[in-house]
């Protein structure tokens, strides 16, 4: 399930409900991304999304991840709008039969979300506001998954 929302969310409650009722998925992995305060330098993060297109594009990646890692289920919650330091921005949870696929799919989806997902990010700080592009590290992270795979279950470098 893909959720794009302006409202805050409770990662613990979301994870409990994602795990509830699973009998065949032996593994659930999750990641929560939180807005950094940057030692008081960052006052707010503003994430612009394009409702409709943003969920559709994330949905395509979630479907690709489900296939690549044989997931039983996937949850992506992503906020947009103004987000204060300390608040969760994004959560990914993946369910699979075994842990390796769940971990890797979660890692893969986060690398995608941090580098290619349809968001435009503006950081508001003491020195004003600026639009943020993916960092070199974000680009290197997503590039790990692009390499040709020899086995159906890819492992990053």
């Amino acid at each position: 399930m893909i959720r794009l929302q302006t409202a805050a969310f409770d990662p613990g409650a979301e994870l409990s409900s994602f795990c509830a009722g699973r009998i065949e998925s032996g593994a659930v992995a999750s990641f929560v991304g939180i807005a950094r305060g940057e030692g008081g330098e960052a006052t707010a993060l503003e994430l612009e999304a394009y409702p409709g297109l943003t969920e559709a594009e994330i949905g395509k990646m979630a479907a690709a991840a489900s296939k690549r890692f044989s997931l039983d289920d996937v949850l992506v919650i992503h906020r947009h709008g103004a987000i204060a330091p300390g608040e969760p921005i994004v959560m990914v949870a993946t369910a699979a039969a075994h842990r390796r696929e769940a971990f890797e799919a979660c890692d893969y989806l986060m690398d995608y979300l941090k580098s290619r997902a349809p968001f435009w990010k503006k950081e508001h700080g003491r020195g004003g506001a600026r639009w943020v592009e993916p960092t070199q590290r974000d680009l290197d992270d997503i590039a790990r998954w692009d390499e040709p795979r020899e086995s159906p279950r890819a492992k990053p470098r």
Partner: protein
Amino acid sequence: MRVLLFGRLGDLAGWRERSFDPPPASLTALKALIAAGDDALGAALDGKGVQAAVDKQIVRGDACLAATSEVAFLPPMSGG
């Protein structure tokens, strides 16, 4: 026709949503109309990595806009 500008394109134009009636026939014509008299905005719309979406579908190259209800210009995506 509803036109949306995202990210730095919206800041540059000074608006993020505007109606164009009657609608122009193509993306190229729409870009010319948006950028009329503003060379910086025109260059930004044709900038590296800027994509267009027609009715929430990303399109490559030019596109006919006859019965289109919404066009968006998307600067390079930053990720979340």
